[in-house]
């Protein structure tokens, strides 16, 4: 992870026709770093990857590898290999031919191609499948062939365009770790595009969250998860419960104005840059604590709420409740089930409570629609 600035995007902007897809993207990726570009569909993450790969020319800005401007270089002159979402294997070629094609293009002798390809097959667990056509492989095997085809040419940078999205959920979990281990073993720089938050969290050194063609936040997984910079990032990282509150900043504390559902409270400012006024409060279902009414123990600073349980389900691990708080419903988990109709106290500890000033045009944000909800499912 040394040598920051190994791969640099400098004020990159691009669009199709009159539509601007990305604006002023600045990103610096270190050598050997695994960076995940995370965002919902249509946020520009695949376009960004295609700009890196050289399939889309930016309308302005520069792409640099080791301080060398590669913005106008063709895809094969950038030292990057792309693994496609559809794997893009050539159906008329065998596994060995697919993997070896890049070497053949480089004019390598067939004996050396053979030995490199079989080494790659062994590394990826594809031994004995060299003579098969892609049609006779499972999804996971195809994915590994696509990876082998990209890696065999020894690229400096590996670009991954949602490479796991076509795999079964169970295989995906193991492939995540295999891919991450392989990347670390080879010390290769990787840029991984995904819409799967968990995938980005477990695989990446750094997560870059894109929202409508801009970088909303970037940082280590735990930073982005625990200290989201915007309401969008908080929602994307799972804090989908949204409440509108009035607060007043008082020195190093934030004073919560009591309302329909919430009690008066006081939480530390905790490095947030807040001003008094209307705020959006976000928290994760699993961060909330549920108590029967008036049975809430005294527990540090936080947001306490009163509501009625509408329904309860068991998704595994904890009971998930839909709780009506005034005019809004939130999800809250608890180790035991509270019956529907029961009035409960919901407590959100201050470190799990994300507060953001509402923008001037606070007519809802782009994140609470059903469209974006799909992305976290």
């Amino acid at each position: 992870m040394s040598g920051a600035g190994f791969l640099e995007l400098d004020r990159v902007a691009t669009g199709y026709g009159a539509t601007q897809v990305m604006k002023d993207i600045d990103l610096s990726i270190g050598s050997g770093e695994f960076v995940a570009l995370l965002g919902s569909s249509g946020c520009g993450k695949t376009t960004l990857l295609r700009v890196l790969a050289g399939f889309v020319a930016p309308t302005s800005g520069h792409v640099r590898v080791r301080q060398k401007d590669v913005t106008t270089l063709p895809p094969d002159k950038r030292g990057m290999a792309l693994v496609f979402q559809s794997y893009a294997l050539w159906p008329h070629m065998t596994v060995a031919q697919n993997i070896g094609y890049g070497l053949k293009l480089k004019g390598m002798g067939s004996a050396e191609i053979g030995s490199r390809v079989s080494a790659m097959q062994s590394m990826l667990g594809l031994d004995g499948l060299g003579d098969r056509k892609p049609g006779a492989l499972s999804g996971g095997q195809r994915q590994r062939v696509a990876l082998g085809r990209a890696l065999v040419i020894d690229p400096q940078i590996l670009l991954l365009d949602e490479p796991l999205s076509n795999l079964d959920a169970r295989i995906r979990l193991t492939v995540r770790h295999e891919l991450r281990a392989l990347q670390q073993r080879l010390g290769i720089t990787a840029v991984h595009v995904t819409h799967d938050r968990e995938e980005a969290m477990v695989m990446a050194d750094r997560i870059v969250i894109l929202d409508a063609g801009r970088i909303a936040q970037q940082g280590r997984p735990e930073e982005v998860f625990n200290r989201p910079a915007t309401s969008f990032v908080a929602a994307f990282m799972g804090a989908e419960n949204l409440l509108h509150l009035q607060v007043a900043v008082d020195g190093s504390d934030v004073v919560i104005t009591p309302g329909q559902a919430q009690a008066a409270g006081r939480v530390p400012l905790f490095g947030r840059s807040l001003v008094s006024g209307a705020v959006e409060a976000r928290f994760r279902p699993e961060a909330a604590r549920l108590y029967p009414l008036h049975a809430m123990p005294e527990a540090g600073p936080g947001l306490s709420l009163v509501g009625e349980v509408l329904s309860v389900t068991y998704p595994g691990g904890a009971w998930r409740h839909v709780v009506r708080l005034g005019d809004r419903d939130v999800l809250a988990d608890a180790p035991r089930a509270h019956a529907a109709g029961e009035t409960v106290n919901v407590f959100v500890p201050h470190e799990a409570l994300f507060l953001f000033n509402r923008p001037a045009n606070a007519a809802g944000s782009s994140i609470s629609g059903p469209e974006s909800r799909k992305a976290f499912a």
Partner: protein
Amino acid sequence: MQSHSPLNFAGADSPAGHDRRAIGFGGVVSPLVGEMAGRPEGAFIGRSATVLSCTNNFTPSLLLVPSMPRRLLGLLLVLPALGVIALLFILPLVMSAIGAFQLDGGWGLGNFTKSIDLYAKDIVFTLGIVSLSTALIGAGAIAIGGYLTLGAHPVAVSILRFLYRWPMFIPFIVVGQILRTFLAKNGMMNNTAVSLGLMTPLDAMSFLDWRGIVIAFVWKQTPFVALLVAGAMASVNREGIEAAVNLGASRLRILFEIIVPQVITTLSVGLILSFVTMMSVLSVPLMINAQSPTMLTADIAFRVNAYGDYGVANALGLISLLLASSVAWIYLKISMKERA
């Protein structure tokens, strides 16, 4: 002109003629398939009716009765189609085939030995011209399809997309006529070359021989194959092409190593259909190359029109049918493989 030939299968001369054959072929298959499919369906209905009757206490006969006429009804429905095919297609074909072996005093191979004696050169000529044309059509179709798929200049691509299909809508006879005025010794091609100072009138030569036929066939048939091939190429996974670009493949390598292998089935089918169509064209050899050697279709028309010699005409027809079937056999093999 060609309608005098009893061997209509080799005399169809327009694109419509080619289509008619294709429909006829489909017509032979579908009624048979329909009949075969009808049987198990009927049986199934019979069985299910029995099951129903056991559980629901229906009278079995009430439910079984409609299944019997339905089977007959299916047969009745396909009967007109079968009849038309039998009367207008199979019967004339069989009659012509039989006629090829009919001599004045009985049966024999006389018509065939006469055909070979008189027209061996024409058989080779026909096969050579059609094979060469097929190869050139293939090359042209790959070039057009390849440019439509990989072309980097959007304006050039759209102009080509607009232009390349036009010859498909021009009948063979018109193609022959156009090229006759274009390729003749004092035709437009030579006149233009002379007026541009590229050659002197003395160097001008006529292309109205085998070269003219090949030019006419390629001009007329390339768009048809290109249309099929370009469609198939358009459905090749774009990411597969980008993956090759990513590894540094040139456009020519992408075309021949990535795209063409994936559309090879469509290309072969298009070329086979073109081969069979060209085997059956009469107007082009008559318009462009009214000399010897010429194509078999012209010989068949000549035997019938000039001599009333149906025996040799039938034998020649059977020979061109054999040539056409040899490639049709490849077509069938491909379509069997696709269905498997």
